[in-house]
């Protein structure tokens, strides 16, 4: 019964979404208040309906209702509750339902919090959201319905892929989707602006908080996914440049560019049509990402090969959303009035450089992701594009980006004196050079260490440069103490947020450079009592025992880390054999320190007795996760800036 209500709510939601978009667009065209209010009402109804539907599916998972195909193929009664719930979005149908639910939540949020939005813009934004939601709902109902019943329900379900039974991954998709779908807001605002033919500073101020929120979620989502890959896959890596990761990384790059270009629209009324294009591209890349992963055009999923109808639908949707909006752009964007002019060396110029580099980076990732498809479609056979391509292309794009990032915030609008800035930053320049040299010497002073020394110098440059900006704003070391404090207090939250995010990236670079340059790996066959060396410790295999789990049996090894002969730490990695589906996984055991991670994995029992064990020394890797967290924290802080308070009318500055 509850399942049927969910199913019914989902079908009803499709019609409500269509009404929402029709009423919104037509009402805005006629300037009819009543119609536009109806559209708002529809958006709230859509939000409630999708919530009911999502709740019903969740309920089916919680009570293990195996009469649903979706639950039977993806869940199992012996699964811990957390993974029963995360199983809702751990599959194609459920994840699409989560997608559309979040989309409806965002549209509802516009209605509830967007009281100060101009009514026409608001109605159109809601209408565009309704269109996207309608397309998704139709896709779910016609090709991927999670509420399908099974004529003969099995006694128990198929189980969730044990790799996905992990707290990190349980929350990874919702964050990712909050990011993807959050960018739909920027998209809807862009389309509404194109229909209206007007983009101004106020528009940018309304778009930015949504984009910022989406960006924070996406950053966290990607970081969670990467962290999961690091500790769960058991190979010591944290980023594999596989299509699934790229799918989330492309919208992140485009969205980051969008955040910065919207700033230029807001402050200087320039780069308007570019910003609109970025908003469209960011969301299109989000869609593309979802679909590349879900449709199997790139990485095939079992379901796809047996159902070409699904792929066709996806393609039609992508055509409608991306093709339609880009066509609208082609016709309407030339009419947007160009705004303020600026010299190449200026804050605007810096942000434009940021945009060029970030979009080039996104394009590069897109090319690498789609290249296998291109080659295959042209009859060139199967190829795969791996890390070497990305490292060769991506790193050279990032170096100038990071180098410019430290200076950009110090530049003034319109035109700037770059040499003047650099000469004021001589302390930072000196510290950067010192860091580079120090790292080079410490690393061994070989020619091959120059790259890692350069990376660390870059991180120092960005970190100190970001702090320097705050120092200059507050006239640190130049004004009296109380004046500095007064000036610090006046710095808006948005500026603090930027500093945090930029510094966060610097910290992340430390982790990336450290772990890729100085990682150590030891693979060996060990019997109980034997020791192996890793970095500055010796690792002894103390014991191996069988440990039963709720839905698996585990082989648990106990390693003792010895530093200078004394016990330093105990780690117990496991090798689990899940019962349903029958699949082995390895649970790593990691000891994290600021200097690096000791990472241990226990493998199968070797034929001649003993166990295959793998140890990794991952230098500075904790810095990477910390950096990512600080980055998103920066976004969050910026979100609370008075200027960005959703719908806050202009000019109510007190303080």
């Amino acid at each position, binding site marked *: 019964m509850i399942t049927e209500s969910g199913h019914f709510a989902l079908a009803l939601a499709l019609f409500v979404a269509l009404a929402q978009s029709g009423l919104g667009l037509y009402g805005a065209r006629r300037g009819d208040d009543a119609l536009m209010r109806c559209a708002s009402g529809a958006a709230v109804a859509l939000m409630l309906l999708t919530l009911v539907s999502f709740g019903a599916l969740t309920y089916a998972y919680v009570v293990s209702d195996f009469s649903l195909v979706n639950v039977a193929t993806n869940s199992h009664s012996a699964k811990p509750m957390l993974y029963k719930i995360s199983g809702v979005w751990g599959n194609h149908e459920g994840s699409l339902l989560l997608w559309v639910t979040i989309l409806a939540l965002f549209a509802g949020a516009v209605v509830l919090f967007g009281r100060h939005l101009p009514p026409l813009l608001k109605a159109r934004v809601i209408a565009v959201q309704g269109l996207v939601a309608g397309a998704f709902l139709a896709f779910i109902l016609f090709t991927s319905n999670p509420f399908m019943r099974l004529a003969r329900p*099995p006694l128990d379900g198929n189980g969730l892929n044990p790799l996905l039974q992990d707290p990190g991954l349980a929350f990874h998709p919702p964050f990712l989707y909050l990011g993807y779908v959050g960018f739909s807001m920027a998209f809807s605002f862009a389309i509404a602006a194109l229909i209206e033919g007007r983009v101004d500073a106020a528009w940018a101020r309304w778009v930015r908080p949504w984009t910022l929120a989406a960006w924070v979620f996406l950053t966290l989502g990607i970081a969670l996914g990467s962290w999961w890959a690091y500790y769960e896959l058991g190979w010591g890596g944290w980023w594999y440049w596989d299509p699934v990761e790229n799918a989330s990384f492309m919208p992140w790059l485009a969205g980051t560019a969008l955040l910065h270009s919207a700033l230029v629209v807001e402050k200087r009324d320039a780069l308007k049509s570019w910003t609109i294009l970025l908003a469209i591209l960011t969301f299109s890349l989000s869609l593309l990402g979802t679909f590349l992963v879900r449709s199997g*055009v790139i990485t095939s999923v079992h379901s796809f090969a047996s159902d070409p109808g699904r792929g066709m639908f996806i393609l039609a949707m992508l055509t409608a959303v991306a093709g339609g909006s*880009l066509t609208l752009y082609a016709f309407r964007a030339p009419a947007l009035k160009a705004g303020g002019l600026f010299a190449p060396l200026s804050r605007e110029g810096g942000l434009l450089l940021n945009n060029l580099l970030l979009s080039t980076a996104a394009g590069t990732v897109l090319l690498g992701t789609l290249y*296998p498809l291109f080659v295959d*479609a042209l009859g060139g056979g199967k190829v795969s594009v791996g890390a070497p391509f990305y490292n060769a292309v991506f790193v050279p794009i990032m170096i100038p980006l990071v180098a410019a990032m430290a200076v950009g915030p110090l530049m003034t609008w319109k035109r700037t004196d770059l040499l003047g800035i650099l000469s004021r930053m001589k302390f930072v320049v000196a510290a950067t050079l010192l860091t580079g040299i120090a790292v080079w010497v410490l690393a061994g002073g070989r020619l091959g260490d120059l790259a890692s020394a350069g990376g660390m110098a870059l991180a120092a440059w960005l970190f100190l440069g970001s702090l320097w900006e705050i120092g200059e704003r507050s006239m640190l070391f130049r004004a009296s103490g109380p004046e500095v404090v007064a000036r610090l207090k006046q710095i808006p939250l948005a500026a603090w947020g930027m500093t945090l995010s930029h510094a966060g990236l610097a910290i992340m670079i430390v982790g990336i450079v450290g772990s890729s340059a100085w990682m150590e790996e030891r693979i060996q066959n060990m019997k109980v009592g034997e020791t192996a060396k890793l970095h500055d410790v010796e690792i002894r295999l103390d014991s191996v025992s069988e440990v039963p789990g709720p839905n698996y049996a585990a082989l648990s090894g106990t390693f003792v880390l010895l530093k200078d002969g004394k016990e330093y730490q105990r780690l117990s990695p496991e090798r689990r054999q899940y019962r349903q589906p029958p699949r082995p996984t390895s649970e790593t055991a990691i000891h994290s320190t600021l200097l690096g991670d000791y990472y241990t994995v226990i493998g199968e029992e070797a034929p001649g007795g003993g166990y295959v064990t793998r140890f990794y020394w991952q230098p500075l890797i904790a810095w990477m996760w910390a950096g990512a967290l600080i980055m998103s924290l920066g976004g969050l802080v910026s979100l609370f800036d008075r200027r960005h308070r959703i719908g806050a009318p202009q000019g109510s500055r007190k303080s």
Partner: protein
Amino acid sequence: MKRRLAYLLPVLVFLGLLGFFFRGLFLDPKAIPSVLIDRPVPQMDLAALPGRGDTGLKSEHFKGQVSLVNIFGSWCVSCVAEHPMLMRLKAEGVVPIHGIDWRDDPVQGMLWLQKNGDPYTRVGTDPPPGRTAVDFGVTGAPESFIVDAEGRIRYKHVGIIDERNWRQTLLPIIKELQK
């Protein structure tokens, strides 16, 4: 005019991409030509299901006529969905179907067949870790293989056999091999 063209560029690029996506729909990125295709079936001597009355599945059993090998298991939910189709194929009698009860408890496998019907000519059990199926190149269940009269694997089908892929793909290959 030139300015207008620049604005048209994004949609043109997208249309180009679209062409590739459309083509991509009809390519199967996983259809990496299996190295096992046209090779003899792996050496095997699989035990029979308890009480089923056959002698299990051995490599010799594939010699002499074209056969379909189906990988299943009592734990496999998709296999339940596939099963009526296999029962129909048995009734039609176009090709003998051999089953491999993969990563399964043989008793459970037999009970499952008693409950859902038994479309197989011969069944071999491949209990965990299921090495024989892995030698076949199996990545999941259900999967099916067409083996020719000389005992060579000629085609691998991933996923459920349904009306459509049976008519369009599997049956023509079997007919061709049976000539």
